[in-house]
């Protein structure tokens, strides 16, 4: 699973969101490191909907513009859980390797 796909799934895991809210959430989740272009975001959403991991929720008109909300399906939650387990196992392995050299990951990124 690519990082943009993982981040979109993570953003949608909390609640149904429209495109801009997903972009804003991803920027916050990644502490500003990842800013998805709109073209990439909709490519990811297309794929998630095609694979049955997300679906359309509702539509609103906000300040004269269309907002379409998306939500995760049960399969989407399962896929996110599986990917999270995989990444967590990787993080554990890396943390163990770093500990052997007396390094530990800092909460702000990098190592101390």
């Amino acid at each position, binding site marked *: 699973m690519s990082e943009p796909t993982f981040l979109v799934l993570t953003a949608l895991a909390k609640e149904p969101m429209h495109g*801009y809210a997903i972009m*804003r959430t991803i920027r916050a989740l990644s502490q500003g490191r990842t800013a998805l272009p*709109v*073209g990439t*975001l909709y490519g990811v959403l*297309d794929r998630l909907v095609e694979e049955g991991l997300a679906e359309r929720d509702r539509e609103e008109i906000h300040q004269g*513009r269309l*907002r379409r909300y998306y939500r995760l399906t049960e399969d989407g939650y399962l896929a996110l859980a599986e990917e999270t387990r995989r990444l967590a196992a990787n993080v554990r392995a890396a943390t163990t390797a770093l500990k052997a050299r007396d390094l530990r990951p800092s909460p702000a990124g990098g190592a101390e």
Partner: protein
Amino acid sequence: MTGLERRYRLLLRVLPRWYRSEREEEMVATFLTDRAASAGGNLGLENAWPGWGEVWAVLTLAARTRLAAKGVRRAAAIGDAVRLTALLGLLVQSAVVVGSDTSLLVALAVLPRSYSLEVLDLTATSWVASVVAMAVVPAFAALATGRRTAARRLALVALLPGLYQAGASLVRGEPVVESLAIVAGQTALWLAVACLYIGFHRDAPPPRDRPWLRAFIPVAGAAVLHGVLIALYLAALLERPWAVEFVPSWALPLMTGYSLPAGWAVVVAGLVVLATRRRGTAWGVALAVTTLPVVVQQAWTFAVYAGKQPYPITTAYAASAATLLAAALAVGAACAVTAARGLSRLDAPLRPAT
């Protein structure tokens, strides 16, 4: 509507109509809200442009939707055609390189060393170019076995010798027509590499490797035989000229290059597709497109030799180029008509797969 919105909507026109009818308003709203939030309001958006990152993302989305892997039947058929064109093109170019390098090695083996280097015009640069051009073979193998990224990198490497030759010709102050001739000779490779890049996007299915790898064996075998034939002809020409007097003049162009057998192979493949009609629309489009570089190359060859003194050899070159040109035009046009009929039957739906 701000200038930025106008420009973004213009950019979105690279997306297919069915996709825009579903997504355009949503994408515009998301894009403008994000830009306004970044800019602290709508001020300054009149003269702003979508960034390069956004342009690239929309172009990538256009490739994915216009050359779909599944879902929209028309887009999937065009996507399959582009992917077939890449595979066919890399297969033919692999054969050309295998034949070319075979003839070089055989010629080196059979010609006396004293003048083989001079006759074959071998320099350190041409050796390196011959080796680098071989990258198209592993590029084809990588693509056929589903290694898309490796195939893309290797295919780019395979373009380097042609680019170098064209550039070096310009630097040496030779007429621009010489560089153009080199580029015209590489049209098929450029087309295949372009199709590889745009057709095998992230969502594209990998090709079924077995049929393509199986096809490579006879094609490469024929290229090796042809390469050996060319080298032996060259050796006979230099050492036993009487022997080559028996070679009919129409066969002479076959003894000096690879574009003719490669071109005829494409024409025969087109005839098979037309005769069987079982391969579907994608094959028709792919063969119609694949005949284009053959047409360009043979038209160029014909133009060059038709203007020369009418010696038997130049007449033979012009005649062989004209024959292949006519055959490629006829088969390409027939494939295009078949493909257009097939595509018109695949109605583009108004909604995307989502």
